[in-house]
């Protein structure tokens, strides 16, 4: 893993998350190389399999490109995905700013905003389960709580960040139990809906673990650990 010594470039890449796994690409081991020379950033990304879905891959390459370009002193960015069936299309599309549909002419209807939104909603539900699990373990009861009643915790911070990303109500008086569309979850529905949030969390965390494992199998030198 590259050491975070490059003028902010590693921090910039750490702000890029795998939309499907909801974790920073730096922590997943997806960044093989990142450096800046004379204001020119060079980034090489790698993924767990040759056939990883091209839409998520595109989002990560494009987000990495944007994040790196925004670093003070960087005047140009060369961000490339390696060893992927659609590397060429993705790399060229991102470099030219063609957008997803422009990178895959005739194969995509429009951009990836809806896809991103879908996975942000999933990420939010998973964070709701993490917080709910903590509250229950501490003898609390998530139902009928307001956000302001919830004690500080890393799980609360994670939930708030994802809620804000979705543009959902984050005020202290808003109910803790909001669904992924911002609608309050009724008390009689809470058990089932929280049970589903649990399934979402199991799914996302399981996928992330599998991806880490596959990445390590594919690139034994990668430092992505199987957590």
């Amino acid at each position: 893993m590259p050491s975070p010594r490059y003028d902010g470039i590693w921090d910039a890449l750490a702000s890029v998350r795998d939309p499907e796994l909801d974790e920073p690409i730096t922590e997943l081991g997806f960044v093989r190389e990142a450096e800046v020379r004379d204001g020119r950033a060079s980034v090489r990304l790698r993924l767990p399999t040759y056939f990883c879905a091209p839409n998520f891959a595109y989002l990560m390459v494009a987000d990495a490109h944007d994040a790196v370009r925004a670093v003070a002193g960087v005047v140009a960015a060369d961000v490339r995905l390696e060893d992927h069936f659609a590397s060429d299309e993705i790399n060229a599309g991102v470099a030219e700013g063609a957008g997803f549909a422009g990178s895959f002419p005739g194969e995509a209807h429009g951009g990836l905003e809806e896809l991103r939104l879908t996975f942000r909603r999933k990420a939010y539900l998973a964070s709701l389960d993490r917080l709910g699990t903590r509250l229950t373990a501490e003898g609390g009861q998530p139902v009928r709580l307001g956000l302001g009643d919830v004690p500080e915790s890393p799980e609360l911070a994670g939930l708030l960040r994802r809620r804000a990303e979705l543009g959902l109500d984050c005020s202290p008086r808003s109910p803790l139990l909001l669904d992924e569309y911002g609608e309050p979850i009724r008390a009689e529905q809470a058990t089932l809906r929280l049970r589903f949030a649990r399934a979402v969390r199991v799914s996302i965390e399981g996928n992330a673990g599998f991806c880490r494992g596959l990445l390590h199998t594919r690139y034994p030198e990668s430092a992505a650990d199987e957590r």
Partner: protein
Amino acid sequence: MYEKDGQRYFIVDGHIHFWDARPSNQANRYGEGFINCFYDYHRNLSPESEVWSLEDFWWQSEERILHDLFEVGYVDKAIFQPTYLTDFYVNGFNTTEQDGALAEKHPDKFIVNGAWDPRDGEEGLDRLQALAERWSLKGVKLYTAEWKGASKGWKLSDPWSYRYLEKCQELGIRNIHVHKGPTIYPLNRDAFDVADVDEAASAFPDLRFVVEHCGLPRLEDFCWIATQEPNVYAGLAVALPFIHTRPRYFAQIIGELLYWLDENRITFASDYAIWTPKWLIERFVDFQIPEDMRGEYGEITVEVKKKILGLNVARLYDIPVPPELDVTDVHAGSGEPVASGPKAPA
């Protein structure tokens, strides 16, 4: 048949292949990439003692298959699930004909499934009829991410898919195995989305939809659908090997499946030759939900394991089960949705 601690288990492996991924059959870099991807799955999730060389993984001889499945693998009956991939492999990766040749030599051991692709239109419907007659099909395997020229996949909800499902119904093919792969048209949508299974399962209540690898990586969406559609089943291919590398995660998967579905709709699958049944079966019979998770998921009983390892698939394919290997309370699916929440967002 597998025996342990005085309990005997009838084993049906619901998902096996007889593939040819040797370089001589690889049509292009995609064929090479595809088998390498499988090989990484194999290397990542198998116990060290079970890891093969890439050469061994490319292709298995008839002798090896018989050995791995029946001589040492405890399998009583195995179901071939074809994957054509003719854009990646010169003669196809694992076709009905390849599988069928082996099944015909050993009719007591194998069941062969067919396949179809809605993009083949009318011609494909005729082919399906011929295939069904030739192989007495009771099931088909559908690979929605199959590339075909410019197209990168299809959906079960496509109008032509419905034509084929109608045809299946007409031909008495009731078991529809659905496999989601990583690329699908249009590319901007989630390729693993299982919403189309929901629609098809509602539209064809007499068919059974066995979703391979239980919807992974979309386990939650799969569970949400399966809890509402009594004719949706979970195939354990890919999920089961986690029992070795990540037993706690496996406990969560099986726990979620048992919560949202029931024990009559979960089916054993090795995905041979990605993994071999021997170690999977041994581990699964020895498996128990870790103590600290039992408050949430309960325990897995011997009866449930018997159903998952063979009895459930036997019921779908009318495979006779020796009475001494059956369980007493077997029933044909609860038919009752566990939960009836609002429709999951598509």
